[in-house]
């Protein structure tokens, strides 16, 4: 049995963190301090008021110095990409580096630095992280799994139920914890099924079935990330960027665009897996393997007090997110996930503190600071206008073409680095770029296109923790050997990635976007903020 989750460790040059630390720092210095600011950048920051704002804030004395500060901010981008991809610094520390640079290099006034590192989005994230801890502590995740699969029998029913339910669950609670729990469950179902079919004493493995079940689980949990802001910090980051342009999106509105996609994507995963593996699978009856799960359901007995309180808390928070109104924001209801478990004595405070991933939280806060740096320095506008000109030259500068291009790019990047890292780096550029494109659905449409695609990190094992989890924990119970090889992600994940993107393009952009629509005045409001330059 695999005891720990380790993604295949970076080998050779990629493992040399000191080297990448130096490379990242060198790139930052070269871009930030040595390369002269382009003419177009100087023009933007002086015409759009960014230079004036920096002078007003005493961050620069003249336009040239302001342009240099903008170059420093631009230098942070490749350094952050290198640090996120190689983990030359722990991810949380890379996040903290953003306000550190802002303070020490005078990139924002001190009050703005503090403000950028906090706000509704980090509060929301803190609550979501705490919710994950509490659900695992009280064992509600086990109850969910037995409810979901315990009643099923046969082959097709459990498969479809697994894929669709996991994509829905992945929209609301920690997909990684669910993956870590479900992978051994799935392998137990697999083993029980092949054992029933094997001659006595001799297990005849069915590798196609093992891969089929593991990838079905993994990809379904991945695609659930589109369903709601609670699915992941990357979604919350995008909402934070919209808020910076005075066009915040509430929880339920995101669900209107994303949640219908989740079960359809789950269904797509199931069908794709059946097409790929169906012919090679020898064991086409999972009922014997599911019997053990049924037994566990019986042994669990009735729901305990802790489970009831946790379930009630989750439903309360969800209702407040949807119906609570703008006054509560997203952070207000989320923070109840820290208070309720302690008051109702279902999880001790220390367990919540220790269970929260502060690494993740610092990373998200740092990403918001980087977004603010890019916005207030004019770097985001310069990058946005540069990229938009390039996209317009190939005919995808607006609307559907832009959304497809952005989601494809974001979808590629997310396989190589953290989903939140992709959103952190692309969001501050995508938002102004989409505003400049002039489509009335902006900047929401492009932001959604970018964020949705970060849930499709299927084809590299390092793309998302879910991939590493199914690889590490997906072992045959008798031999301890891995049922999946890293190259299998490329073999089976690449087509799944394409299918996921195409489905979002067709169902999301061409059907849901027009069906749900976008509020009047969305673009104008955001454009006003953009055109006021650094003043806001």
């Amino acid at each position: 049995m695999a005891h720990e989750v380790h993604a295949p460790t970076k080998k050779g040059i990629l493992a040399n963190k000191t080297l990448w630390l130096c490379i990242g720092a060198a790139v930052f210095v070269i871009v930030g301090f040595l390369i002269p600011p382009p003419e177009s950048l100087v023009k933007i920051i002086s015409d759009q008021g960014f230079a004036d704002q920096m002078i007003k804030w005493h961050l620069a004395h003249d336009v040239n110095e302001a342009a240099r500060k903008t170059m420093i901010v631009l230098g942070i981008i490749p350094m952050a990409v290198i640090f996120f991809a190689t983990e030359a610094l722990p991810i949380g520390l890379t996040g903290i580096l953003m306000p550190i640079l802002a303070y020490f290099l005078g990139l924002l006034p001190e009050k703005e630095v503090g403000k950028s590192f906090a706000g509704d989005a980090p509060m929301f994230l803190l609550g979501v992280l705490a919710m994950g801890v509490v659900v695992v502590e009280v064992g509600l995740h086990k109850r969910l799994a037995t409810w979901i699969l315990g009643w099923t029998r046969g082959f097709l029913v459990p498969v479809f139920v697994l894929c669709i339910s996991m994509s829905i669950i992945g929209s609301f609670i920690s997909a990684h914890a669910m993956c870590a729990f479900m992978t051994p469950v799935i392998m137990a179902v697999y083993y029980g099924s092949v054992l029933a079919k094997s001659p006595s004493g001799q297990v005849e493995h069915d590798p196609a079935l093992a891969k089929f079940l593991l990838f079905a689980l993994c990809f379904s949990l991945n695609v659930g990330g589109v369903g709601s802001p609670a699915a992941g910090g990357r979604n919350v980051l995008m909402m934070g960027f919209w808020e910076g342009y005075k066009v915040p999106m509430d929880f339920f509105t995101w669900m209107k665009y994303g949640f219908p996609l989740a079960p359809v994507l789950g269904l797509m995963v199931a069908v794709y897996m059946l097409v790929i593996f169906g012919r090679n699978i020898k064991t086409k009856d999972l009922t014997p393997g599911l019997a053990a799960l049924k037994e566990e359901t019986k042994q669990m007995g009735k729901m305990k007090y802790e489970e009831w309180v946790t379930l009630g808390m989750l439903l309360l928070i969800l209702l407040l997110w949807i119906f609570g109104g703008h006054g509560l924001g997203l952070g207000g209801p989320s923070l109840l996930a820290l208070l309720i478990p302690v008051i109702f004595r279902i999880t001790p405070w220390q367990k919540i503190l220790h269970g929260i991933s502060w690494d993740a939280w610092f990373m998200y806060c740092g990403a918001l600071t980087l977004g603010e740096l890019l916005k207030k320095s004019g770097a985001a506008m310069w990058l946005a206008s540069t990229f938009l000109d390039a996209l317009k030259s190939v005919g995808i500068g607006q609307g559907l073409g832009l959304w497809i291009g952005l989601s494809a790019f974001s979808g590629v990047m997310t396989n190589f680095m953290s989903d939140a890292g992709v959103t952190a780096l692309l969001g501050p550029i995508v938002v102004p770029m989409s505003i400049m494109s002039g489509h009335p659905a902006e900047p929401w449409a492009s932001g959604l296109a970018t964020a949705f695609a970060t849930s499709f990190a299927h084809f590299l094992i390092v793309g998302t923790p879910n991939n590493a989890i199914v690889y590490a924990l997906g072992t045959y119970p008798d031999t301890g050997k891995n049922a999946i090889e890293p190259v299998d992600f490329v073999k089976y994940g690449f087509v799944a990635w394409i299918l996921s993107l195409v489905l979002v393009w067709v169902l999301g952009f061409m059907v849901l976007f027009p069906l749900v629509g976008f509020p009047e005045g969305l673009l104008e409001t955001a454009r006003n903020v953009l055109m006021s330059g650094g003043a806001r």
Partner: protein
Amino acid sequence: MQEPYVMLVDDEEAFVEAMTKRLSKRDLKIISALSGEEALEKLDNHRDVDVVILDVKMPGMDGIETLREIKARFPLIEVIMLTGHATVENAVEGMKKGAFDYLMKPCDIDELLKKVKEATEKKRSHEEKIREAAIRNALSFVE
């Protein structure tokens, strides 16, 4: 609880056959080995074994050496030593090296079953704790 999966290791073939028959009737899943080396080879492909019932006195690789290897390579699998009167000290040494318990030969079958059940529960409880730790660890992953 799902039936315990037990490996019986003893160089006396007749004893192994007889015990296998008796234990199978008591709802245990049994595999057997006639030597320490054979036991280790079989465990490599049967890592889901819960408990090994291991004779202390065997030619070649004796019980203590086999125990050491099992604990090194398959640390979660519990081992119950079976010993004759002359080798009680070895059994005690085995306990110090991580064996779950020991029984004197000839052993009472109900007593053996009781210890197998306890050892199985301990092994599965450890596995469950490791699974829970992996889940908690997954909460700390940055997406």
